[in-house]
């Protein structure tokens, strides 16, 4: 109990409330005498003239101590004490018997037996009476204090318990939350892994598709390549033997037959060009880029020297601004410029062709342009002209196979660039194309695209 009082020090220091002291005597003078002695203790003194009255008081109030006269009429002290003790509430209420001197030891013993805790001999000695009663008052106060502490303790315990309960509840909630978290975590993991699996399946599928595509593309290219080669042979026979025939009948044939033979030769030559272009077009797809650092100015010069004949024939004026150094496939780039400049010269509409080539650095790419003063292109054909075999003009007007620009597009796209045209009919065209400054990593071998339409 000590530690409890220590935790509530103010309870011990408080001045305790007055306690009730029950005085039972049939002699009012005796009661007065008791009162006179005990008054100074500052407690509440309750008088009872009989055992019965005492019991009545005890029913209503709590008493710290009972001073009980033994010799009373009707119900003596012993009887009264017995009845008091019967009541659970008063089982431990201290009773001090007041007895006259000369009573026997037996009486005293009997008093203890029915529950007296002490006795006092009459005539009473005030100091003794006071000090004895004081003991019980203090006892009572202590008890009350303890009870109070007990109550507090109980409340405290209850609070603790309820706090504990709350804690337990909280714990349970947390545990549940944790469990749910674990659960949802697991769910998430499951979901994630199934997602990953699905992604993996998808990309495996995509890879498989890409492989199939690449395979069939390669087969297609191989087919076109081989069949073009095979086509060359009979064609060579036709050309050769028609020419041999021409030699054979040198000046012996009538003009009509001569003309007919000439048609055969020209037709065969056209097929020959077509096959050659087709072969170079499929070769582009079948070959991976071999990029190197090239001077695009030199590339243009090379293309121009390949075009010497048509430049001389048309009297074309080709001008070129300083061009950059860049990473590209030399052979392809020559072919690209050769086709673009060749077209610029070819589609001149009878005017003397003027071609201007320039390049400009953009963020991460080079923008090239080939500008001419030729016949121009109607806007609805801006896309179409890059499709293989797409021709806009009669062969007699402008000869060609319809592969040139498709080839250009393929070359530019292999370099991860773009090609497009701006033009106004009658005023000329500007062909633009871009080549990224960094083309490595973007190399690819053949694409399914235009060539699939070509076959």
């Amino acid at each position, binding site marked *: 109990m000590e530690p409890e009082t220590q935790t509530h020090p103010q309870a011990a220091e408080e001045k305790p409330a007055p306690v009730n002291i029950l005085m039972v005597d049939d002699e009012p003078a005796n009661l007065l005498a008791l009162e006179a002695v005990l008054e100074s203790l500052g407690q509440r003194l309750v008088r009872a003239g009989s055992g019965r009255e005492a019991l009545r008081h005890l029913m209503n109030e709590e008493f710290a101590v009972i001073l009980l006269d033994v010799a009373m009429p009707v119900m003596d002290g012993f009887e009264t004490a017995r009845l008091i003790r019967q009541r659970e509430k008063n089982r431990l209420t201290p009773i001090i018997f007041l007895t006259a001197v000369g009573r026997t030891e037996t009486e005293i013993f009997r008093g203890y037996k029915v529950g007296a805790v002490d006795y006092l001999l009459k005539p009473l000695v005030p100091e003794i009476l006071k000090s004895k009663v004081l003991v019980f008052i203090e006892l009572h106060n202590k008890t009350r204090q303890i009870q109070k502490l007990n109550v507090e303790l109980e409340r405290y315990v209850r609070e603790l318990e309820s706090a504990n309960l709350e804690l337990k509840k909280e714990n349970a909630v947390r545990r549940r939350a944790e469990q749910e978290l674990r659960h949802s975590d697991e769910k998430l993991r499951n979901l994630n892994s199934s997602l990953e699996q699905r992604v993996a399946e998808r990309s495996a599928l995509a890879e498989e598709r890409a492989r199939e595509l690449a395979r069939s593309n390669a087969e297609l290219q191989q087919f076109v390549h081989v069949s073009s080669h095979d086509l060359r042979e009979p064609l*060579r026979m036709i050309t*050769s033997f028609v*020419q*041999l025939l021409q030699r054979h009948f040198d000046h012996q044939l009538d003009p009509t037959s001569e003309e007919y033979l000439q048609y055969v030769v020209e037709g065969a*030559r056209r097929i*020959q060009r077509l096959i050659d272009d087709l072969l170079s077009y499929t070769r582009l797809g079948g070959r991976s880029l071999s990029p190197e650092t090239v001077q695009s100015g030199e590339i243009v010069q090379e293309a121009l020297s390949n075009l010497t004949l048509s430049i001389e024939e048309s009297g074309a004026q080709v001008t070129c601004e300083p061009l950059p150094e860049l990473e590209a496939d030399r052979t392809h780039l020559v072919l690209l410029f050769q086709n673009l400049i060749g077209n610029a010269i070819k589609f001149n509409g009878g005017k003397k062709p003027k071609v201007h080539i320039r390049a400009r650095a953009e963020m991460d790419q080079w923008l090239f342009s080939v500008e001419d003063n030729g016949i121009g292109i109607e806007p609805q054909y801006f896309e179409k002209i890059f499709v293989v075999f797409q021709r806009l003009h009669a062969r007699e007007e402008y000869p060609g196979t319809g592969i040139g620009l498709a080839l250009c597009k393929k070359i530019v796209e292999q370099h991860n660039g773009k090609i497009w045209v701006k033009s106004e009919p009658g005023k000329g065209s500007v062909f633009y194309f871009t080549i990224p400054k960094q083309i490595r990593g973007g190399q690819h071998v053949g694409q399914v695209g235009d060539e699939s339409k070509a076959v």
Partner: protein
Amino acid sequence: MSVKLEMSQRPFEILQVEDNPADITIMKEILKMAKFPVRLIAVRNGSEALDYLYHEGKYQDSREPDLILLDLNLPKVDGREVLAQIKQDRLLSHIPTLVMTSSKNEADVLEAYKNNANFYIVKPMDMDHYMVIVKYLEDFWIKKTK
């Protein structure tokens, strides 16, 4: 098989290894325009070519040709093998051997020169080009050997 024989001169003999009869005809026609007498002997595949060069089988009486025109894609023994065999054999390796094929394939060109072919000719599409070849043969090989 003799082509335009001239008095005391033995004609210049060319062995053409070619499976396509049309090509043989063309070559025959073209060689008619040569300034020197040329005799064209044609065999149709690689194994016949080797028989001819080693005087075996039906070519017991064959003479060593002055020049060989060799097609690459041949039935039985391939032109590439014939070339390798000729250039490996000390008795044959001196015969000028010109590969004449329709293949423009770079790998074929490289392989031919690696095997010591003396020249690589792509069969022309045009008679004018054939004439260039004839002139080349005359200037470079026929005059030299004669």
